[in-house]
């Protein structure tokens, strides 16, 4: 059985700052890394993997970022395919899904694709359903308590209103949430072995036969403006060992703000 884990080189949003004067998002200086949700993706793929199966990492990312995927590989991938986005002028979930689908088809005989419910930075929730549609497979989203018996996967789908227990035959696209599992921490030995795992780089145009222009046009969505959101708060910190004093300090502040009355 062949499992593909789709992982994303993402912006570290906790470090994304907004310029207070210009409201510009400081994207260029925000560090990037393989996302936290991707660790759940990798864990799910590796745990599901039956004896004799292989797990392949797949990402649309700049080839120059390959070092950032070390830990991901060490979590248990057999190899990693990077579809190089360096000179790829198409953005958005539609184009991403097209690239991932083409890569999965090129890999051949894939039975299961695992994605995150949403990427750390994109958070569009669009890539997995679009990918499933392109592949013509069912999408089993927000899965928890995943079990694989033969070619049938069962899981509980964590929907906002409750759980939905489902069963579905492979092939399919699965998405996981941060609640799905607890990702492992690779050991030094895992990391040493991972060094020997192959990293393949494909070009979307040359290797997958895709055209950025065509996809961008078909996607039909163009960004025309961007603005950071600045919310100013007072950020006053009260500390000390005397809880009674702290409580009264807070009440004084709330009274002064007129949100409560005495």
């Amino acid at each position, binding site marked *: 059985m062949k499992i593909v884990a789709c992982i994303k080189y993402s912006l570290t949003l906790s470090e994304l700052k907004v310029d207070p004067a210009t409201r510009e998002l400081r994207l260029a200086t925000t560090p990037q890394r393989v996302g936290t949700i991707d660790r759940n993706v990798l864990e799910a793929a590796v745990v599901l993997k039956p004896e004799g199966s292989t797990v392949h990492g797949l990402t649309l990312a700049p080839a120059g970022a390959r070092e950032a995927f070390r830990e991901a590989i060490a979590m248990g991938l057999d190899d990693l395919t990077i579809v190089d986005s360096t000179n790829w002028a198409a953005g958005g979930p539609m184009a991403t899904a097209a690239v991932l689908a083409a890569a999965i088809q090129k890999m051949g005989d894939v039975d299961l694709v695992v994605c995150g419910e949403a990427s750390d930075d994109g958070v569009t929730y669009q890539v997995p359903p679009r990918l499933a549609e392109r592949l013509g497979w069912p999408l089993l989203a927000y899965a928890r308590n995943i079990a694989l018996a033969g070619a049938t996967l069962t899981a509980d789908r964590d929907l906002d209103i409750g759980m939905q227990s489902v069963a579905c035959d492979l092939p399919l696209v699965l998405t996981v949430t941060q609640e799905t599992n607890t990702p492992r921490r690779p050991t030094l030995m895992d990391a040493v072995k991972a060094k020997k795992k192959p990293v393949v780089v494909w070009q979307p145009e040359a290797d997958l036969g895709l055209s950025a222009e065509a996809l961008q046009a078909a996607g039909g*969505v163009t960004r025309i403006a961007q603005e950071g959101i600045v919310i100013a708060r007072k950020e006053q910190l009260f500390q000390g060992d005397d809880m009674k004093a702290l409580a009264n300090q807070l009440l004084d502040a709330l009274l002064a703000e007129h949100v409560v009355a005495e």
Partner: protein
Amino acid sequence: MAKLLVYSEEAGVARELLAKARQVAGTQGFTEVGVVALGAAAAATAAIWGEWGADVVYTVAEPALDVYNPETYTAALAGVIEQVQPVVVLVGATKRGLEVNGRVAERLGAGAVSWCDDFSYDAASQSVTAKCLVYTGIGNNTYRINVLPALAAVPPGVFHEQAFAGHSAAVIAVPVAIPAARMRVLANSVKADTGRRLQDAPVIVDVGQGMRNREDLAMAEELAGLLNGQVACSRPISSERDWFPEWLGLSGLKLSPDLCITLGVSGSIQHTIGIRESKLIVAVNSDENAGIFAQADYGIHADLYQFVPALIEAIKTRSVTKK
């Protein structure tokens, strides 16, 4: 003929989207505000949507749609859109709405955006402009969508439902063939509805993973009670510990109370987006470097187990109330 279509499997969210659609219909030149009702049961009561602002209710009265399944719902919604040919489709960005939204967009080759909180349609250029939250709410992007229909996933709580007394809707049954789903639904367990309306509470006590045991909620409830408030929580408290059916944040509710007191919440942006419209935010956290402090008006660097009882005590002694 520029039609606007609303879809959400959650009736409350559909009402919110309809209210907005009705409000802008005149100014943006929509000739029709439609809503989609899927399943035999929904079709039977379809006419009620008129009062919530719909001109037309498009029904697919297949019994197969009485149980939610993303595959059958995708087929139904895609089928309705193909036949109705709207220029804008507002989709409720619940987890169910999002999985259907992406799939329908791909099937129809439609332009789609997520986390939309404002939009406008320009008949002259045949394009839609949508303002969307990006990076989990750190920024706003404005998009132009020129492959129509434009599917815009709108989070719950962005717009507010409104009754349009006397407005009535035509009900049109749309014939859509629903293929058998490959993913089989074995069981649905729906979280018990508490009937709470957190949206109306003037004070929210927002509990995070810093609260260790369910029994400890009593402390939060008491605090909320003294201030005429309600207790809400972060996603893990709901999805992992199951203490409450709903949570606050990106994928949950967004509230704007007069006062929000967080207890043991770390301050991840996915959560704080649900409380950042509060007039005043107080944060209690035992970690001096917790990110929540930078997003709060008043931070209390303390163990909530020590501080909250002291606060309750002080509120009682000083007879502090919330009007």
